[in-house]
């Protein structure tokens, strides 16, 4: 329970990025992920980093969901009204980022989220996605180009001063 409560928030934020703002689907993915972790708990001592493992389970659950649910994604979900932390004051920019993520193919989106939100290495990303490092590099380059083209300078406006 402690692990689930401790990781739920971070996994949920990851899932929200993966689903480009669909908070309902994100919650479902997190529940599925943590329920799988629960069934694995007896073997958890053999897992070096349970938090990273949960992240991998989340990514694979998301990709499986995408494969099974091939219909178009639902429209952008509404974001919470009282955010715990607000970045930019302009919701339009945040929505623009989520929209840009949504336009990426699911696997490219996973690469972006793992590489630039999770700060995972190419190798770790490849491991989580069960693909080669070269495939991650290719997807990363392609996704960044699309995001740069889509967002341009607005990314700089989006971020808050460190």
């Amino acid at each position, binding site marked *: 329970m402690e692990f689930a409560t401790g990781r739920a928030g971070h996994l*949920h934020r990851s899932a929200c990025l993966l689903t480009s703002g669909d*908070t309902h689907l994100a919650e479902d993915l997190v529940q599925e992920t943590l329920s799988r972790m629960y069934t694995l708990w007896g073997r958890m001592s053999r897992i070096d980093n349970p938090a990273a493992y949960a992240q991998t389970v989340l990514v694979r659950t998301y990709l499986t969901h995408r494969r099974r649910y091939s219909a178009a994604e639902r429209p952008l979900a509404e974001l919470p009204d009282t955010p715990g932390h607000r970045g930019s004051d302009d919701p339009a920019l945040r929505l623009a980022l989520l929209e840009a993520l949504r336009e990426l193919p699911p696997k490219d989106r996973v690469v972006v989220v793992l590489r630039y939100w999770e*700060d995972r290495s190419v190798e770790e990303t490849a491991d989580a996605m069960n693909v080669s490092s070269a495939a991650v590099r290719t997807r990363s380059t392609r996704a*960044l180009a699309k995001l740069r083209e889509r967002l341009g300078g607005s990314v700089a406006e989006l971020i*808050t001063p460190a």
Partner: protein
Amino acid sequence: MPFEDELGKALRDTAGTFTVDRRSLAEGSLARGRRRLARRRASAVAGSAALAVVLVTTAGVRLTGGQDGVGTVGGTASTSPPTVDHRHFEVTAEDMENILQNGMEDTGIAVVHPKFRATGSSGAGRAATASVDFGDGFGTARVTLSVRRVDPAEQDLKELITCPPEEDSPYEECTTQPGNRAVKGYTEAGKAGGIKEWAVTMLSPGGYLIEVATHNLAATNTGAGAGAGTDTAARSVRRDPRMNPGKLRHLAMFVDASFTPGGEADSLGRVEPGTRAEPGDFLPLLKELLPGRLLVDSEGGTAAQGHVVVLDPDSGMRTYIEVGRIAGDKEAWDETLPDGTKVGTRQLPGKQPGVVRLRVDALRVNGLWISASAYNAPSPTSKKSGAAPAITAEELKTIATSRSWLLAR
């Protein structure tokens, strides 16, 4: 700063806006995990799919048949108010289909290509049934409904709404839930072969024994009614049934509310599917937010838009008021509220001479853009009905900035 770094920072800022009740999410996850583990263990020890089929069949027979107990209703009816005749039951197959269809809509389950079957009943001795086979993108699923007229005071019925002792239980899981109105239980009969039935049985104080059940079965050539148990060719097509016990309970409560104490379907049950407003639709929310002095003359709308025409009984003047969720592009804000919501109020000319359109837009920090308008006319294209709309700009602003819209679906 390189684009990659900017992107990382932007992702962190954006992700930071998503909040969730971590504890409830964790609790839900663990409950799902425990169930997953229980199913895995059960499937490992169960001998064959036949057992599951037997269980499903047993449940079906228990609910769709089981008329013996009803025969004693007459003898125990004296414990009920004399005005209620628990032997009277009059419901058509069409009513049952509508009740199930409306109930499914009420639970929010997306139903694709539904195939409904239903039977009515004209006596307490016979259950009225309905079933639907449908898809939802993850495979086919079935939901069945059975309603039998009973005297709630009848002692034999308690057996049906009480779980057997765990050691004797044929069910993988069964929960007896206490309550003033009913005791509800659900069974999960997932066994080897993957055929599972989850069910909620409810004894309503109005005199109905209601069972709703869901199966992970494919649509097959079964007879009419809720008799999944009569389906000898049943085969599982998905890991779990579509509806969880919470949704099933919700559906059972809806069914209970669809019948009168007198033994007939009420207006909630008879309403044509698809025409009833959802609680999360804009129209019911708009009506709740209207100033109490306004009298609604007519109304309409879709999920994300609602409108009413309010009537001033003294002058006969009609005002059209509409509200909707929009994806606006022309931003014109006059003020920002303390919660960050931007508000813009404008008065625009209508299409007809003398018609005024009062418009208030509200853009919340989460991106939800609500636009509310009022016309001094019965519709946006009608001739004017009075000098000004019957609602003030301040009242319209109260509507547009209400947090209720966050609840809209």
